[in-house]
C-alpha cells in the first residue's frame, strides 16, 4: 500500500506532467493514475487505499488549481451509481461506466420512487419482463433529479410478482435516450421543477445492463441508498452562521423595526439549535476521520430538516408585510434546491420537502429506534405475501 508521501508524490507527478488547462485530458490522466477516488481498485480510477487518504489528493489538486470533475453536478453518479456498479457490476460494466461517470461525460440519475411506492420502496410496480436477451420495462418513476439531462438511470424494477416484494426485484442501468423513455418536469409547491417524472413504455433494456442477479435488486438498491448516506456524512466542516440561519440573522441585524421580544427569544433558540447541530455534524466528521463512524449520521438529516423548516418559517414571520410577498411563481427548471438565491417564502416552502425527501422523518425515527436503540420492528403484514396478492 502507498504511504502518504508516495501518494503526494504521485499527485505531484500528475500535476507536473500535464497541462492543467486541458480539462478532459487532465481528468482522464487523473483517472488513469488512480487519483480519481483512491479507495477504488487499481485500473478503475483508484489505488485501493483508505477513503480518508483522498483528502491528500484533493488538497494538492485544489492548491494547484487543477480542473475538477464538477462533483456538484455529478451527485447521483459519484455518490450512488459508482459504489453500486463497483459493488455489484461485472468487470465489463465497471470498465464501460466508471470512467465516463467520474469524468462527467455521462450523467446518471436514479429511477427508484413511484407514485405508489414512497417510503415503502420495495413495493414498486414498474415491471420488467424478459424478452430474449432483453427486458421490456413499463411503469412510472418520479422525484428524479437530473433525469432531463441524464444519460443513464439506476432503475429498480419488478421481475417477479409471484414472490414477496423484496425478493422479486432486479436492478438495471437504463439508457435514458432509449425509445419509450419519456421525461416530464414534476412541478413542486414552490412553483419550480427541480425533479422529473418518467413514463417508461415497453423500454428495451439489454440483459447486459442488469446489475446484480435477477431477484437481487433489493440488495443492490441498499448499496445505492447506504452510499448516499455516507456521502452526506463525510462532507466538509460547515462554518458558523452558514445555512438557513444566515438570511434570518441578516434581516434581524439590518431591520431593527421588525424586532420584538417574542421573536428575539425564538431566534436565540433557533441560533443555538443550529449551532449545536453544526457541532454535532462536525463531531460526526471527526468520528469518520478517526475511522470510528457512529450511528449519529442518521440524526443529522432529521435535525437539519426540522431546523430548516423552523428557521425559514421564522424568517417569513420576521419579514412582516414582506412575508406576504413571493418572488416568483413561474414554472422553471432548476438544478437542486437553491435556497439562497430566492426569498424567504421560497425557503419556507422548499424546506417542507426536507422532512420528506431522502427518507421521511417518520421513517428515520423508525430506523433510529430499531437499528440504534434496538426497539422492536414495525409489523410488516406484506412481508411474506406474494407481491401480486398484497392489497393496494
Amino acid at each position: 500500500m502507498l504511504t502518504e508521501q508516495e501518494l503526494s508524490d504521485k499527485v505531484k507527478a500528475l500535476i507536473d506532467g500535464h497541462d492543467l488547462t486541458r480539462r478532459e485530458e487532465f481528468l482522464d490522466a487523473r483517472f488513469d493514475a488512480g487519483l480519481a477516488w483512491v479507495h477504488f481498485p487499481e485500473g478503475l480510477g483508484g489505488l485501493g487505499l483508505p477513503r480518508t487518504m483522498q483528502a491528500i489528493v484533493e488538497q494538492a489538486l485544489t492548491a494547484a488549481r487543477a480542473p475538477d470533475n464538477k462533483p456538484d453536478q455529478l451527485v447521483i453518479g459519484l455518490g450512488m451509481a459508482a459504489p453500486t456498479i463497483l459493488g455489484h457490476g461485472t468487470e465489463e460494466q465497471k470498465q464501460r461506466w466508471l470512467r465516463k461517470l467520474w469524468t462527467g461525460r455521462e450523467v446518471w440519475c436514479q429511477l427508484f420512487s413511484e407514485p405508489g411506492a414512497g417510503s415503502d420502496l420495495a413495493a414498486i410496480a414498474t415491471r420488467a419482463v424478459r424478452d430474449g436477451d432483453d427486458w421490456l420495462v413499463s411503469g412510472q418513476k418520479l422525484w428524479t433529479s437530473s433525469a432531463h439531462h441524464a444519460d443513464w438511470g439506476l432503475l429498480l424494477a419488478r421481475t417477479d410478482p409471484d414472490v414477496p416484494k423484496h425478493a422479486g426485484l432486479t436492478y438495471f442501468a437504463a439508457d435514458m435516450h432509449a425509445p419509450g423513455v419519456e421525461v416530464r418536469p414534476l412541478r413542486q409547491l414552490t412553483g419550480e421543477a427541480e425533479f422529473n417524472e418518467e413514463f417508461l413504455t415497453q423500454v428495451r433494456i439489454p440483459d447486459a445492463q442488469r446489475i446484480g442477479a435477477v431477484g437481487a435488486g433489493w440488495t443492490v438498491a441498499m448499496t445505492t441508498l447506504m452510499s448516499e448516506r455516507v456521502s452526506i456524512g463525510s462532507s466538509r466542516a460547515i462554518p458558523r452562521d452558514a445555512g438557513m440561519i444566515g438570511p434570518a440573522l441578516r434581516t434581524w441585524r439590518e431591520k431593527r423595526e421588525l424586532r420584538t421580544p417574542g421573536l428575539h427569544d425564538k431566534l436565540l433558540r433557533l441560533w443555538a439549535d443550529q449551532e449545536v447541530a453544526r457541532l454535532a455534524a462536525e463531531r460526526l466528521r471527526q468520528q469518520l476521520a478517526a475511522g470510528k463512524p457512529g450511528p449519529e449520521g442518521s440524526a443529522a438529516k432529521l435535525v437539519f430538516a426540522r431546523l430548516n423548516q423552523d428557521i425559514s418559517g421564522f424568517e417569513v414571520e420576521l419579514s412582516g408585510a414582506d412575508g406576504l410577498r413571493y418572488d416568483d411563481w413561474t414554472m422553471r427548471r432548476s438544478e437542486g434546491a437553491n435556497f439562497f438565491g430566492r426569498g424567504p417564502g421560497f425557503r419556507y416552502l422548499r424546506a417542507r420537502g426536507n422532512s420528506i425527501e431522502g427518507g421521511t422523518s417518520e421513517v428515520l425515527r423508525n430506523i433510529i429506534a430499531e437499528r440504534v436503540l434496538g426497539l422492536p420492528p414495525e409489523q410488516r403484514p406484506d412481508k411474506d405475501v406474494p407481491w401480486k396478492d398484497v392489497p393496494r
Partner: protein
Amino acid sequence: MNLLYDDAEQALAESLKALLNDRCSWDKVLARTESEQTCDTDLWHSIAADLGLAGLLIPEYAGGAGASSREAATAAEALGAAVAPVPFLGSAVVATVCLLACRGPERAGDQEADHLLRRMAAGELTAALAVPFVTAPGGAFPVSIRVAGPQQGDQAAGWSRLRGTITGVADALAAQTLLVPADGVPPALYAVDMSTARVTRTPVTSLDMTRQLCDITLDDAPGVKVASGQEAARALTAALSAGAVILAAEQLGIAEHCLDLTVRYVKERHQFARPVGSFQAVKHRLADLWVEVAQARAASRYAADCLATDSPDAAVAVALAKACCSEVAVHAAQECVQLHGGIGFTWEHQAHLYLKRAKADSLGFGTADAHRAALAKLVNIPAP
C-alpha cells in the same frame, strides 16, 4: 477543536464507572437522601483521593493531575449518570478553578490559594464557592456579604471580618473551607475556615436532595483575602464558567442514563400483549431523545474543549452547552418518568432522583434562558 473522547478520558470514565457501580447504586443514593448526611463523604474520599479526581484540574507541582476541563467533563458525565451525592462539582471544579484563577500564573508560590490547592489535591480538604447555585457566569459581583470592622489581633493574623447571608449554596455542607466573594472597596474573595462558630450552615430542604443546598450566615467570620478587584471578578467568572460547563457534562450523563434506562424498560414491559417499545408513539419519542442526546454531547464536548484550550470562543461555547444540555437533561428525565408509566411516578423507582437532579441542574449556574441571553450579546443578535 477535538469533539471526541481520547483514550485517557475513556480510561478515566471506565474506572470511575466501575467504582460508582460498586459503591453508588441508586437505592443507596435514594436512602441517603432521607438520612442525616446527604453527601456520601466516604464515596467522595475514594473518588477525591484514591481516584485522584479532587486534583484533576490542579497542576502537578501542587500535587494535582494537571488535567483539563475535558477530563473533568468526562468524569462529570459518569457522576451525573449515577446521580452521585459527592461535591465534585463544587470543590474539584468551581472552588478549584476559582483558587487557580486567584493565584494567577505569575504569582504561583506560597500564598493562601496555593496552600489550599495542595490540601485539596491531596483529598484532605473540600472547599465551596459561597454563591447561590443559580448564579450564572458574567453577572455583577455579589454584594450579600460585606466586610465588617476589624477585631483585635486580626491584622496580625491577616484576617478580615465578613458579615451577611448567602442562600442556596451547593456542595457546601461537606466543605471545610468557603470561598466568599464580599462587597468592599475593592470587592474581594476571602477564604473562610468553616469550623469557626461564626459560620452557620442551615441545610435547605432541596428539590434535589442528592445535591443538597444550604444557607450560610457569616457573623463577623474571619476570612483571608485570596484576590481582590479585577482579579477577584475574573476568578469568579472563571469558576462559574467552569461550573456551567462541567454541569452541562453532568446533564449529558443524566440524559444518557435516562435514555438507556427507558429503552431497556420499554423492551421488557408488555401491554396489549406486546412490548410497549413496539408502539411507534413510544419509538419515535425515544428516537428523538437519542438525537437530542447526540446533539448535547457535541455541545458539551465543544465547551469542555474550548475551556481546555483557552479558545477565544469559550464564552459562546459555555452558554451554548449550558443552554442545550439543561433542556436535554430535563426532557430526558421527564420522558423517563412518562415512558415508565406508573412505576416511574413512584418513590421506589430511580426515575425521580434523575428528574429532580435534572430540574435543579437546569437552574444551576444559569438557566437555559439566561445563557441564551448571554449568547445574544456574544453573537450579535441584539434585543429589540
